[in-house]
């Protein structure tokens, strides 16, 4: 137990009523767990000052630098679930905005259509709706409203199909919307999120082959968050459509101290009340496998354990319970074939992506790929002891 301010905030002080102490205790834990919400909007985290740059030159910095040189470039960003892709997009957007003379917009296309059903015209319509909304939020524009109705109608699954494909017409709207949003700028860049949820790689390939050249033709640069599976298999030729492909892998917590220090600083930034003991932070970092969202989720869960345990700080045993609970969830619904693959990765570190099921292990973070230092694969640390237990090892 630490003899510091955080402890005394919920401990009954001489002359103070017990009620205040009790309320303090729950509020302090609530506040703590509120800083570790795995499903919170990355924009909130950035706004609350929780963003910590990765070691070295961050992806956001590199993207911003490349767009300064070539604004109409197209980039593909891939990474496992929870690796921090959206956060990097948002930070890169802020950096570019700070330079001025650049029109930058972030669009989550899944707010307007199912990413797995997206086709080029729907893709452009979804972007147009988002940009048009920004215009209408700022000022009344009859023309924009009329065009928005048209875009919305196209995406309405109940509406009758259109006689002719309005792709070029919608691209014209897009160009006008951007012009209206940022008059006087020549560089226009769109950050398109959520297409990593496309499980149909053929459809993704079709989308990219049509939409990317069209956007480039009207002078729009793009960063597209795409499916991790695009990196593998016969459809990886689609990668040639992009100027650059970025793979945001997990932070390697075993490769020197840089990765661990970075993840510890993520925890320090959010643990304003000092509830994490140093050894607990260290263990959480290791158990996260370097996956940002898992680090956040495990910490919140360890906090919940400590709260239920009437503890005053998060101790190692709370972390271990949270990790066991997390690992059991991660192993749920694994079939025997996938189990064999996981056991092989655990024992030998070898992983060859030959099937959809193998790729699913990567996408769901049961297998982690590290590319920052020496490339390697590992099973998620929370499932490692459970796999050993299944294998009957002591």
């Amino acid at each position, binding site marked *: 137990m630490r003899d510091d301010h955080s402890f005394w905030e919920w401990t*009954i002080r001489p002359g103070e009523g*017990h*009620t205040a102490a*009790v*309320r303090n205790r*729950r509020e302090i*834990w*609530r*506040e703590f*767990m*509120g800083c570790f*919400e*795995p*499903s*919170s*909007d990355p924009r*909130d985290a950035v706004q609350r000052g929780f963003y910590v740059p990765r070691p070295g030159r961050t992806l956001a910095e590199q993207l911003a630098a490349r767009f300064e040189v070539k604004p109409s470039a197209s980039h593909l960003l891939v990474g496992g*679930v*929870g690796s921090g892709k959206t956060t990097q997009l948002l930070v890169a957007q802020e950096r570019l905005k700070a330079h001025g003379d650049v029109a930058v917009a972030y669009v*989550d296309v*899944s*707010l307007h259509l*199912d*990413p*797995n059903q997206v086709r080029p015209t729907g893709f452009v319509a979804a972007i147009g709706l988002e940009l048009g909304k920004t215009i209408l939020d700022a000022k009344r524009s009859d023309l924009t409203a009329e065009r928005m109705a048209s875009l919305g109608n196209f995406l309405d699954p109940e509406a009758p199909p259109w006689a002719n494909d309005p792709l070029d017409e919608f691209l014209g709207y897009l160009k006008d919307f951007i012009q209206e949003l940022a008059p006087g700028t020549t560089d226009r860049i769109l950050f398109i999120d*959520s297409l990593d*949820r496309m*499980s149909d790689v053929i459809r993704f390939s079709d989308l990219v082959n049509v939409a990317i050249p069209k956007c480039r033709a009207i002078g729009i640069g793009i960063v597209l968050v795409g499916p991790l599976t695009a990196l593998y298999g016969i459809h990886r030729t689609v990668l040639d459509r992009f100027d650059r492909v970025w793979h945001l892998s997990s932070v390697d917590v075993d490769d020197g101290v840089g990765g661990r220090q970075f993840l510890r600083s993520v925890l320090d930034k959010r643990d304003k009340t000092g509830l994490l003991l140093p050894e607990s932070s260290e263990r959480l970092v290791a158990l996260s496998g370097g996956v940002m*969202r*898992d680090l*956040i*989720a*495990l910490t*919140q*869960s360890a906090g*919940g354990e400590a*709260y*239920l345990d*009437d503890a005053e700080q998060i101790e190692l045993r709370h972390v271990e*319970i*949270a*990790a*066991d*609970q*997390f690992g*059991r*969830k991660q*192993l*749920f*619904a*694994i079939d*025997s074939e996938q*189990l064999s693959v996981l056991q092989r990765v655990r024992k030998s570190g070898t992983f060859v992506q030959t099937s959809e099921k193998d790729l*699913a292990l990567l*996408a*769901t*973070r049961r297998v982690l790929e590290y590319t920052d230092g020496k490339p390697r694969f590992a099973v998620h640390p929370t499932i490692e002891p*459970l796999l050993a237990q*299944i294998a009957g090892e002591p």
Partner: protein
Amino acid sequence: MNLPLRSMDIGEVALLFSALRGNGDWIVLVVEPGADVHSIADEFAEETEMLAGFSVRRISEMHDASILSTLVGAEKGALVISGLDAWESSEWAHLDHLRSRLARHERTALVMEEKTFQRIMQEAPNFSSWLGANVVQCKKVLPILTAEERERRLVALREWSGLSDSDVITRAEAQVLPSDPEYAEWLVLLRRGDLLNG
């Protein structure tokens, strides 16, 4: 094969649920085989309201992912949802694609059978990443404490608050007992749960 999920009783899960700040927190309660999903969900919602002091909207029928995403986006308060066990795997995949529309500023609990959670883990990797470790197997019946366990817990509560059992009962009767969950637990241990609604 599935390893058993962590088992917790409803009261414990409700305590945890109420301690979250609730800014988009999701939790899944998997019921034991043969248990009635809706009654567990009802009990969980009631328990949460009692412990946390905020109201919970209970939804027992949910036809598809589109309706769910619309509803959770529009609802402002805490939600406890059941009625998801008839969904096909493809519906969970659809929900996963629409995950951004599920973003909300309150807490949400989903109560379901094990086979349904299995579908989530197979079809909804993006959504399941939001759950973190917040997935538990829910025991309906509260474990019966031995006399020794009960007394040990009462001693801990007395030390923690500086109050006696009679102080707590007197304050509850006078309706001046704080609404913190520890006091609710205390009254239950004293077999004076009748004072909880006072």
